[in-house]
């Protein structure tokens, strides 16, 4: 959709206003005493954080920086919320604690289950060889959890770098003048791992994502500082609790945490090049990587890596391999932990359990690569999935067009269970005879959540459904603009905002809400779109591996 210049400047103004209002939207008791935006370069230079930078850079950062005064006891953000802001403390003390989820910050950096999940060999096409990793669709558990089940126990979810702090329940961590927090969540689009509350009256510099990114890109000092904080606050604990390193000497892991390199990749950055010398082992902290191999004169994608997976096990375990066996390229923004070869080899020598873990992953990787090379369709599917973001998806609505009679009962089923408003459009990209319907993928890293001024769009539970709370949504459209897959539409409710609405500028305006698939999470009956398809040709697939199987069964009878 193209937007003309006038519209776009109006949008910028609107966003600016929403940004200012994001805190007041919480209501009169939010505790925000004062907020001033766009500080000048000289104002910024008053703070230690900005002293090293020239005026030109500071002028560029200024639109995305504000200075806020908060009173004691104000909640800045809650655990599990997505923010596009980091906070730098100028004055006062902020206390951080865990209060909601049973998961502590010490989540595994690497989960063997996850590696096996993606690295397993897909179905062989005769429909008989099935892999065990694919989980059937389970109605989301929130309802049951509300009745007492433990939250956040999704086995395949690696919480890794969403953790700013490694805290235990009941423990509080105090930050003071000169400290920064929230930056990991903001930079990576992950949920905050802790709740932040002002312990005294505070003055904070609030730096939005664009400014953070510019700073990280332009200043190696800033990048180093942020990485150092990550190492200090959480990395060693994460490494220790990772199944891969469980059993390895704690002191060694702590030393390792200081030696590993934290790498941030931009789209297209090459991490390893086929044939080049193997100098490290990698853990993927976030994002997606394309793994390819040379075939003839060209190159084909053989698989992909995502958060929680490793790279280098094949090369480091198997003697006699000459250099990297694959070229690995970052698809979007990716964060990696790089363990130098010498350090990793010393772990392998000292700890047979690590070696054993890695062998399983290596064998799967080799099988998968071999399978992909023998099946000409696989690279296409991998490329398609990476290009269209299917790799992100926790639940993708796929329709077999050979069978679909276009009756639209799926759409009507969705509408009838959602106040007459369908939450998806039966249109979208096609792959082979499958339609990838324009319905939310419930992404691993949902970018739509970043920048919602009221927190109306949220995860109903970490790692699961992304839903919009109609009561809080102010219809700004930020989420719809952010979603790369057109999965959110703005809907006119034909109501106007009442005179009591907050923020005030809404009062008397037409009320719009963001409308998107919520995976029917409030019903135990599962997705209404799937259930109401009379031809059983609408599927909710949970992963690309599901898609591969769907395709394999489909092709087996051609």
């Amino acid at each position, binding site marked *: 959709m193209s937007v003309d210049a006038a519209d776009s400047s109006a949008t910028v103004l609107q966003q600016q206003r929403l940004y200012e209002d994001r805190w007041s939207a919480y209501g009169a008791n939010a505790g925000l005493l004062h907020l001033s935006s766009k500080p000048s370069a000289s104002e910024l230079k008053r703070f230690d954080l900005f002293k090293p930078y020239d005026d030109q850079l500071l002028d560029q950062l200024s639109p995305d920086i504000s200075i806020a005064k908060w009173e004691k006891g104000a909640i800045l953000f809650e655990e599990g919320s997505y923010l596009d802001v980091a906070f730098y403390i100028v004055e006062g003390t902020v206390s951080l604690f865990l209060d909601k989820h049973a998961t502590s910050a010490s989540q595994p950096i690497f989960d063997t289950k996850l590696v096996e999940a993606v690295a397993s060999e897909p*179905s062989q096409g*005769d*429909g*008989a060889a*099935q*892999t*065990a990793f*694919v*989980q*059937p*669709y389970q109605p989301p558990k929130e309802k049951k959890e509300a009745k007492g089940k433990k939250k956040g126990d999704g086995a395949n979810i690696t919480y890794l770098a969403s953790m700013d702090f490694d805290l235990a329940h009941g423990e509080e961590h105090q930050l003071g003048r000169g400290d920064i927090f929230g930056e990991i969540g903001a930079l990576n689009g992950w949920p905050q791992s802790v709740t932040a509350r002002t312990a005294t009256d505070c003055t904070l510099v609030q730096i939005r994502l664009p400014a953070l990114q510019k700073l990280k890109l332009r200043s190696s000092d800033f990048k180093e500082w942020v990485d150092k904080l990550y190492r200090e606050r959480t990395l060693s604990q994460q490494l220790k609790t990772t199944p891969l390193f469980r059993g390895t000497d704690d002191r060694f892991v702590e030393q390792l945490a200081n030696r590993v390199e934290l790498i941030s990749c931009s789209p297209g950055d090459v991490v390893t090049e086929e044939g080049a010398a193997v100098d490290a082992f990698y853990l993927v902290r976030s994002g997606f990587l394309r793994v390819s191999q040379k075939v003839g004169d060209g190159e084909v994608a053989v698989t992909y890596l995502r958060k929680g997976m490793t790279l280098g096990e094949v090369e480091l375990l198997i003697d006699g391999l000459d250099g990297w066996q694959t070229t690995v390229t970052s698809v979007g923004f990716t964060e990696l932990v790089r363990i130098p070869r010498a350090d990793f080899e010393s772990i392998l020598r000292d700890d047979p359990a690590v070696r054993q873990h890695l062998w399983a992953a290596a064998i799967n990787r080799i099988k998968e690569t071999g399978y992909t090379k023998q099946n000409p369709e696989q690279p296409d599917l991998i490329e398609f999935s990476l290009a269209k973001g299917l790799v992100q998806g926790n639940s993708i609505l796929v329709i*077999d*067009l*050979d*069978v*679909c*009679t*276009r*009756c*639209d*009962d799926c*759409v*009507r*089923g969705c509408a*009838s*269970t959602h106040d007459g408003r369908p939450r998806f*459009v*039966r*249109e*979208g990209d*096609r792959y082979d*005879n499958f*339609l990838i319907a324009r319905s939310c993928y419930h992404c691993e890293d949902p970018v739509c959540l970043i920048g919602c001024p009221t927190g109306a769009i949220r995860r109903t539970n970490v790692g699961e459904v992304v839903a919009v709370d109609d009561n809080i949504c102010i219809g700004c459209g930020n989420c719809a603009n952010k979603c790369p897959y057109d999965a959110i539409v703005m809907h006119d409710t034909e109501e106007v905002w009442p005179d009591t609405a907050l923020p005030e500028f809404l009062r008397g305006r037409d009320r719009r809400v963001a409308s998107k698939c919520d995976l029917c999470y409030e*019903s*135990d*009956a*599962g997705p*209404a779109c*799937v*259930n*109401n*398809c*009379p*031809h*059983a*040709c*609408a*599927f*909710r*697939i*949970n992963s690309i591996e*599901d898609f591969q*199987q*769907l395709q394999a*069964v*489909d092709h*087996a*009878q*051609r």
Partner: protein
Amino acid sequence: MKTAVQKTAIYQKKRPGASRWANKWIQSPQWFLGFGIAVAVCLVVFVLNVVFGRVHPGSTWGLGYGIAAAVLFVGVFFYGVKRRTMKVRALGRAWYYLQFHVYGGTLFLLLMLMHVGFQVPHGVLTWWLWALSLWVVGSGLFGIVLQKWIPTLLAGGVRTEVNYDRIPELVADLQKRGDAVAESADFAVQDFYRKQIAPALAAPQFRPIYFLGIPSGMGGKAKLFASLREMQPAEERIKLDELEELYAAKMDIDAHFTLQRALRGWLYLHVPVSVIALALLGFHIFAVLYY
């Protein structure tokens, strides 16, 4: 072990090892087998019945066939009920209702014919009930043929997928974009657009040719575009490319409009008559009980 896809999606259509034909027409071997057994049992019972006595609607067996047929006929209406009560989540998956609708409806016809001893009834009401039953099941089977045939045509022939209800909106958008491109083009392109393309973009068009195959409906214009393109400078060629894209998209939409309309249209042959037949069945039962 079953995959998630098989478990969650009742994905029985594509059964490895079965022929393409069988996979296309029989979504569920279990349902098909059940239907086959039911038909066989009915026929055996009927043959025995004929051998050992006379079958007419008033005989004990004839009445039994009639009651079974009436129960099935009412049962198959639950598919319609399910489609109108999507909100009630406890009713289960629509797929089961459709399977029952198709197999139960066909079995109903057999039982109804057994009820009348495979004769044409003489009474006015019963004749109409007989005739409408044939029509309802016949139109239903015709619908199944359409539902197997048209999706394959669409899946193989068009590049885009559209919601039927959004077609007018999408066509209006194409027209707007076409007008905008033509407006900035030179006279020859404008003239070509006005005469050859604009009428096609004006509204969704029902083109029966799509029933024969979708690519055959796309042809002709490509040559016109190609010959005009040869005479144009580079910047006009870009505009022609855009117009050709829009035209191709419109052809896809027309294919959807035509074929999706047929997929919806046949229901007018089927549903109203079914409702009349149900009402007549009610009268018939009432008349039998009353008199």
